[in-house]
């Protein structure tokens, strides 16, 4: 059996264990509920079209505009319907629109004629909320990579703490253990996001703004490779961090530096998103590229050759951290009594090939 087969076995075990973990299942369920609520509740709460009381003379015109029309015999009855709260508005002779506190925009629009408009320098129309899309992506990336990263570290520490690790490293290469865990983490993270995305898309299709959905399509195309490589990079950091600790209680001592490395670039992108130069720099720095480059692509600032270059940089860094993580992992595996310093772990490479 080669490293690849061993990696597969390790990854499969990690995935199976996670799929039985109540905490994981519960958190996935909560994410799904949030996604469903966020996409469907706004339109459900805003209610249907306005109801209008009108005499038969104008009712056809209003109905054609998609309003819900209640026919009344005369204008007095129409006014009474509004006063009693039976309808949102009424149209009486004139035509005059009657309403209680606010002018009903859709009723007014149904009765008005708009002049034709010709834009000389048109910008693509952006549905409301579109500007938030890259930030939502960035936030999802941050949240997922942190959650699953911590879990990779925990899984590594658990194997050290329960001492099973010695049996494992006697049977399979250390790299297979590490890679297997990272692959499992990536698969689970992508699976969870895909599920949430599916629910969100279905929600938007059924109840929401399909224009927003059309905008998301190409953005997701770029988000995916950045998410994948960015996740591998952060997972490798967490794996190395986990390898330095031998008890779950001590995870805090190594978690902080890793969290900073992930959080600082994230907030950098959030706060500097209007500074084109800073964003260009951030979109090449491997730790901020997964957030910054999709944002620049979304706003159309990045040139076509930029994403491949920054992805390549990200890939190289991810592989380097992966190799370094594996080395630290090897150097600290059998030091199950107490935490290992980074320097010792780096020097004391133990297992033989």
């Amino acid at each position: 059996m080669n490293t690849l087969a061993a990696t597969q076995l390790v990854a499969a075990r990690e995935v199976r264990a996670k799929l039985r973990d109540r905490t994981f299942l519960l958190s996935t369920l909560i994410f799904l509920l949030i996604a469903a609520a966020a996409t469907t509740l706004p339109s459900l709460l805003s209610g249907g079209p306005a109801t209008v009381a009108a005499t038969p003379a104008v009712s056809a015109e209003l109905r054609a505009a998609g309003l819900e029309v209640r026919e009344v015999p005369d204008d007095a009855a129409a006014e009474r319907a509004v006063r009693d709260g039976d309808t949102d508005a009424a149209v009486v002779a004139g035509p005059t629109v009657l309403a209680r506190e606010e002018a009903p925009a859709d009723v007014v629009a149904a009765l008005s004629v708009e002049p034709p408009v010709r834009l000389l320098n048109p910008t693509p129309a952006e549905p409301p909320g579109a500007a938030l899309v890259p930030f939502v992506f960035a936030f999802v990336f941050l949240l997922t990579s942190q959650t699953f990263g911590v879990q990779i570290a925990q899984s590594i520490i658990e194997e050290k703490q329960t001492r099973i690790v010695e049996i494992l490293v006697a049977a399979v290469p250390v790299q297979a253990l590490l890679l297997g865990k990272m692959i499992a983490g990536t698969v689970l993270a992508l699976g969870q996001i895909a599920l949430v995305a599916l629910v969100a898309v279905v929600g938007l299709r059924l109840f929401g703004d399909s224009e927003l959905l059309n905008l998301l399509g190409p953005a997701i195309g770029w988000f995916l490779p950045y998410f994948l490589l960015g996740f591998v990079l952060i997972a490798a950091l967490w794996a190395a961090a986990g390898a330095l600790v031998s008890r779950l209680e001590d995870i805090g001592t190594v978690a902080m530096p890793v969290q900073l490395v992930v959080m600082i670039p994230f907030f950098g992108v959030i706060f500097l998103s209007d500074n084109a130069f800073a964003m260009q720099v951030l979109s090449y720095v491997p730790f901020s590229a997964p957030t910054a480059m999709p944002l620049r692509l979304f706003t159309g600032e990045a040139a076509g050759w930029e994403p491949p270059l920054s992805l390549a940089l990200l890939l190289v860094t991810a592989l380097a951290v992966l190799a370094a993580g594996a080395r630290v992992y090897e150097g600290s595996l059998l030091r199950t009594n107490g935490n290992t310093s980074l320097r010792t772990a780096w020097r004391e490479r133990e297992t033989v090939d």
Partner: protein
Amino acid sequence: MLRLDGVDRSFGGRRVLQNVSFDAEAGRMTGFVGGNGAGKTTTMRIILGVLAADAGQVTWRGAPLTRTVRRRFGYMPEERGLYPKMAVREQLIYLARLHGMTAPAAARSTDTLLERVGLADRGNDLLEKLSLGNQQRAQIVAALVPDPEVLVLDEPFSGLDPLAVDTVVDVLKERAAAGVPVLFSSHQLDVVERLCDDLVIISAGTIRAAGSRTQLRATHTAPRYELVVENDAGWLRDHPGVALVELEGARAVFELPRGADEQPVLHAALARGPVREFRPVVPSLAEIFREVAL
């Protein structure tokens, strides 16, 4: 045969193994004996490739060990541990598969061994739900489940209840009879005595003695006899060549120089009165160990 040849190892400048060489032969139980910190665990970790040797090498069937070869080894580390929150049967199958077994073969081997150690009905329980003794049984199965070509067990009997010791002894003997070299360390000399064919004694990182049990007895202890006479055996003190080990009234245990004839002592005793008992005493392993290791 599994052979260690001139293995050295230091930790931060402290020599823990020095020129360690010995064999564990196919089909034989080799006991690896030494005090705490003598180097047993380090030696075993080097055999399994979990630690690297600074010098020397380990060979199996004449070829240096590679990862592929080591995957056919069964190992029970001194520091015990399995996945507490994973079902017993499932994790044993997983471990067997990590050693290169196919899924059906791993399942078959797991079921046979669980049956053998009396855990057949606990296979679907989480490991942490098992009693400590049963967890130890599962740990032994973890070493045996890949159907290994070589077995290396670090203190396999510590923590086992007497019943479990018997079961494990039987299983290990079966493996040895099937041609597997079984190398096991222990500080329980009585268990080693009962079990091993060959013996390797390590002390302060060097091998003090290695060979078959009978051969070690012959080389490292002088011939010893027990004599029970009618009255007082005190006269033995002055008998030429006799070194007294114990004397209490009519009973005495003594040693003679290697190769010396014991019959003149018997004649001398008979000349003084009736002899109730006269027999050779086989020295215990503990005595050999004391002789060799200290």
